[in-house]
């Protein structure tokens, strides 16, 4: 039993990333405040990053693919940044017109 604790394998990182992802999803599902939801999305993206790098490190070996993982992780970070920016801009405008940023009350598109 203790070997699983000490011998780090790829799946450790993967399961960690999965846990982080689940927490992110929980955040998105359960929280009302838009910003917390945005942050949870960031968490989910980070989880993805961890997975990419874990696989890149675990499987790439000498093969040049090793760097593919990292470039992708980089791109993910960039996209995350862009997404955060636009998302927060929307949240700000919503706040300005509605005086609140609770997602569950934004139901205009219902029917």
């Amino acid at each position, binding site marked *: 039993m203790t070997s699983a604790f000490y011998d780090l394998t790829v799946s450790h990182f993967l399961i960690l990333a999965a846990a982080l992802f689940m927490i992110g999803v929980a955040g998105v599902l359960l929280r009302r405040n838009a910003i917390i939801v945005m942050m949870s999305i960031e968490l989910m993206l980070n989880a993805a990053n961890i997975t990419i790098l874990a696989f890149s490190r675990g499987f790439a070996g000498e093969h040049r693919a090793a760097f593919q993982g990292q470039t992708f992780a980089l791109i993910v970070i960039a996209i995350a940044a862009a997404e955060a920016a636009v998302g927060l801009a929307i949240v700000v405008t919503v706040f300005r017109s509605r005086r609140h940023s609770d997602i569950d009350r934004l139901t205009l598109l*219902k029917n």
Partner: protein
Amino acid sequence: MEKTSKLLFLIPLLPLAGAFLNLFVWRVLSPSTGRLRQSDKLTHYTAILSVLAAFVLSCYLIGGPLWEQFNVWRKLGEGKPEIMGGLHQSVWTWIEVGSLKINLAFRLDTLSAVMLLVITGIGTLIHIYSVGYMHGEKRYPAYFGYLNLFTGMMLILVLGDSLPVMFIGWEGVGLCSYLLIGFYFDEDKNANAGRKAFIANRVGDFAFLLGICLLFYATKSVNFADLQSAASISALKDTFVGGERMAFMIGLLFFIGACGKSAQIPLYVWLPDAMAGPTPVSALIHAATMVTAGVYMIARMSFLYAHSTTAMAIVAGIGALTALFAAIMAFAQTDLKKVLAYSTVSQLGFMFVGVGIGAYTAGVFHLITHAFFKAGLFLAAGSVMHAMSGSGDITKMGGLRKLLPRTHISFLVYCLAIAGIVPFAGFFSKDEILAGAFGAHAEGWAPLYGKFLWAVLSVAALGTAFYMFRLYFLVFSGENRADAETKSHIHESPYSMTIPLLILAAFATVIGLIGLPHLQGVHLPTILHDWLAPSLVNFERPSLLDAKGLPSVGEGHASDAMTLGLMGVALVVGMVGIAAAYALYGRGPSAKVAKMCETELGGEVHRVVYNKFYVDELYEASILAPFRATARFLYEVVDRFLIDGIIVNGSAYIIDVLSRLARWFQNGQVQRYLVGVVIGGALIFYFASSPKLGFKYEQKAGNLVEFRPDVGEGMDAKGALIEFDFDLDGEPDHSASFVPGQDMIVPYSFGGEGSYKVTMTMTDSVFKKKYKVTRTVHVKGPDTGREGGAQ
């Protein structure tokens, strides 16, 4: 032995044409002053002329070609054909489908000739009478139109060569009686009477229709000529349901039809109410012609009834019952026309007995005589009511002898005729029926059945004489009981009404001579008997001889003394009836009868008889009320609630509920949808992944059974531990780890034959989750071979 004649179809066509002119054509042509008015003269002349023309034409046809053919037929010796075809004409093929072929064809033979003369003769007289009676009536053209239509339909009925054509006439007259009874439809009472008549007739027609179908089913033909053929006769004799012959069933159905039309016991209720119509209508339709259609039909189908003595027994039995029953009911009636109505029902009973015992000639003879004096009676009643400004209540009449001389004389003659006093027609015809009944015996009948019928009829004859003369004395003798106002109006009817009365009275006396009784000794001319012989079945026919070669239905050639004796008895019965009536009602309503009514028993009897034995109320309760109830029930419960409410609207409601549920879930909250996604995903994963566990087993030699587990292709099956527990003791008997791809067989031999419970458990190598499945294994004995069972 039949001749085709071109003119036959004209007889029914003439009155129909008259009706068409009166009902449709004259109205349109005559200058309508806003309301369709046409001159009365034009109406009644067209009507009377058309019926008169029909009468003249039929006299010509009967006198000419038919008389020749009759003489030729009579002179034929032994080999003469039994049935003389008479004049025949087929206008066009009406319905021709597959083997069923019905032509619109007419046949005039001796029987229909007699009916023809009665209908057109009396019809013309009544048309003339109606001119006076219906004077000033607003719907004058309609009345005469319907009367002509009726005569036309009756002629079709009489001349019809096949049963469906007769059926046209049969229902046609039913329609006309509906229209004419309900002529004064302003009051609902009359309209109801009309409807009641039509529906009662319709019940009869229901049986008539089924009779036609069964007849065709048996003999493959519907017209009278083919039905006489040997093949169809033999078909009639083969047994139908319940051991009885086919002829019995067909005969019974047609008899029910006749009951409906001729108002016999079960279906007579409509005739007394039919008096709501104008009196000439009652005279023509409900005395002379329509009601006798049933008797004519049975006479026409004599060949069929002759082959089923049980059917004849039923006809005679019901006839006798009706005769007696109606006579009793007539005692207590206070309305003039109601008494005559019950008398008609009773006299029809006599005719049915005559026809029922095989004495068809007697039945038809009574039909003819009854037509004359009953029509006369109704017309006389009409002129009395005409005089009494419309009221028919005999308690308000009396002493009209001097005031209405002509009506009184004719009324007296009719009463004597119907009571059966010697010179008058009634005596001879009624006596012939009584004599026939007395001597009647047939195969399969109770020995004294004839005598019983004779006794019942004699009592009925007594009753007839009694109530007729009760009527006579109440109306004509004693002092006038009318109130002053109507008394002042009493006047003799105009000649156009009284002349037909006198003519009919003359006939009522003379007509009796055509049917003189059979006397061995003295050879009296039996005109009617010989005349009708070619149309009716003669019982010496080979097919009718029973086992011993005797005719199955005998009329019993009684000795002269017997016939004269019977005639004497009948005369005495009539006289006794008249005497009793004189004693009680000689001078107006009798005090004795009134006293008798006070007594507790007498009053009760009087009330029951007066209310016509509550038969109408019985029908209302037993048939009409339940009919309305079921109708309402079926509509409200079955149709509206059951089918509509539950099935149709019910399913719509369910769909509505489901849709509302879905609408509640979609409330625009994005996160709620995401939760839905997550839960859905989880469920899918959960159900998709649980391995479908199971095992197959095969029984090899003896009790050795091989088990082969098959595990669903779940990811974690590799290296799973499979354990079998054969004897259900909880701990596994055999366990092995599962290697996918390699086929794992676990042999185990059971104790013996029978079925055992085997459980297999699989534990997941990774998560140590246990999956269990138990199945019963049927181990067969060595002989029944292998029993393979697959999951």
